[in-house]
């Protein structure tokens, strides 16, 4: 018990202001993605390298194992442009989205970094068909002078071991 207590004191609890800022960021992100506002959504990220990752069925730590999405900045900029410009065959105008973000937990790594765990619950309507997407989300956030910025976002879908429908939007 004494060891656990000692370890716990090393992790500084995030302040209520930090938690509120995280909630605000995640909810704004959800709204921007639901409304296909990709340019504004990209502005929530750090300006440098980033990772947007939706692992697939296999062990994602192994080489050559495909993910559902595995985007660096260049890939993600192309993907958002493709979606915003309507290049994707499943066109954004035919996709309606509504998502809720719940079970938010904030961990402080250090003064500049936060890790946020949450649960995504999303309904997509496309071609008069209903798709349900549920997964656990992990955000790595940077604390900057301008506020919080997303550096890494990983979404582990609960059904990632099954065949996945076409994903012509962003989780």
């Amino acid at each position, binding site marked *: 018990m004494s060891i656990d207590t000692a370890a716990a004191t090393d992790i500084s609890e995030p302040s209520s202001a930090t938690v509120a800022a995280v909630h605000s960021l995640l909810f704004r992100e959800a709204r921007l993605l639901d409304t296909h506002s990709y340019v504004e959504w990209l502005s929530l990220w750090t300006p440098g390298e980033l990772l947007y990752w939706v692992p697939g069925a296999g062990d994602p730590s192994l080489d050559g194992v495909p993910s*559902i999405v595995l985007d660096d900045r260049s890939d993600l900029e192309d993907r958002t442009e493709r979606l915003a410009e309507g290049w994707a065959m*499943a066109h954004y105008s035919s996709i309606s989205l509504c998502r809720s973000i719940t079970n938010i937990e904030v961990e402080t790594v250090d003064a500049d970094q936060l890790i946020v765990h949450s649960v995504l619950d999303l309904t997509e309507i496309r071609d008069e068909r209903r798709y349900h997407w549920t997964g656990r989300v992990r955000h790595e956030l940077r604390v900057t002078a301008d506020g919080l910025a997303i550096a890494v976002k990983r979404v582990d879908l609960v059904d990632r071991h099954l065949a*996945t*429908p076409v994903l012509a939007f962003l989780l």
Partner: protein
Amino acid sequence: MNIATEVEVRTGPRASSDSEIDVSSLIEIDRVHASLFLDEEIFQLEMEKIFKRGWVYVGHESEVPLPGSFQRKRLGLVEVLLTRDQDGDVHVIQNACPHRGAVVCKPRSGEARALKCSYHGWTFRNDGSNIGIPLPDAYTDQPRCGSSMPRLPRVESYRGLVFASFEETGISLEAHLGDAAPFIDRYIDRSPSGSIAVTGEQRSQVHCNWKFATDNTTDGYHARFVHRGVFWNHYPTVGQTSAESANDFDGGSKIINLGNGHQVVDWGPARATSGAGKIDLPAELATSYEQALHDGLGPERAASVLNEPVPHLFIFPNLFLIQNDLRVFTPLSPSEMSYDTYFWAMEGVDPEINRLRHKQHQRFYSPSSGFVLSDDLAQYEQLQIGLTGGATSWLDQSRGMHREKLNPKTGNIEGVTTDEVGTRGMWQHYKEVMT
């Protein structure tokens, strides 16, 4: 639309004497009937005549690398296991207990010395043979339905690609592959060791009939429209190559009807890609790759691999070899399929080459989200919606019939990459098998 027409669109014309569908009346050389994509009875007939009696692709030997390795697969609607036994031999067995039919192996893949049914503890080697029945004195002889997991009677492989059939007798795999075999060689010889290793799968759920995927494998007509974002937005030179090749029959790309339902896009010299498959290798890596090919395959074969474009090759009924992944079409119902992709690594090359190949695969050919393939799958769903709504009774496949040519050397029909030579070939074979 009146009711009579609607019924015909959905079910197709039937022979008057009985209720069995006359498939041959639904397939003409230049058009096929919409019911082939909609009808449940036709679908069940396909599962029997194509996916049980014929050769069907199961998986790659590298997916079961060790003694005891297994992978769950589907052949048509039937759950099977691809396994490697303790002697190193590869088997395909039905993943069902002979006693009461329960699924025996539940994980999708792994290694196991033996397989055990969770219901009454019957135990099997991974070639399907029984090694134990608890309380066996209840049987005076063998159980009425046998004691072993049913093993598929015919399993053969070519270049590591494993095919199987539920039928005891039939043509050899070599005869089935026929003129497609040299294109398989060309596809796999890009790996300097002469063999490839599947490293991961990704499956996509598509609300369409599986034959929309087969029809699209050599359709060069759709690319500049469905993939307009990739061609014109990011990669204008790729779009130009496609447009030029459309009318470049003698000197460049062509579609070949290889027979037995197989078809290939044999790209012209403009698409030669130095073997690695549509990726530009940095000079140092390109040199090391050329050396590896030279060492592995000999100078003559290495030179031809480096100068030949990578074919887009469809092996009837369910395997598509393209770029850097094997694709498998798994029918689930008349209006649903799983589109499964298997990325593979080359053996005997700098790991950075496989990393770059994988990066390109992930970006463009991930089935659910890749900038190329996800658009194909979304388009197939639009086809299914159109036909379900009675958009048309017949699907046209007459493009370029007047300009296709018989190659006197091979006896195969060849045509322009934006014509429907391959589609017509697939359907003529389908008609033979189904009637």
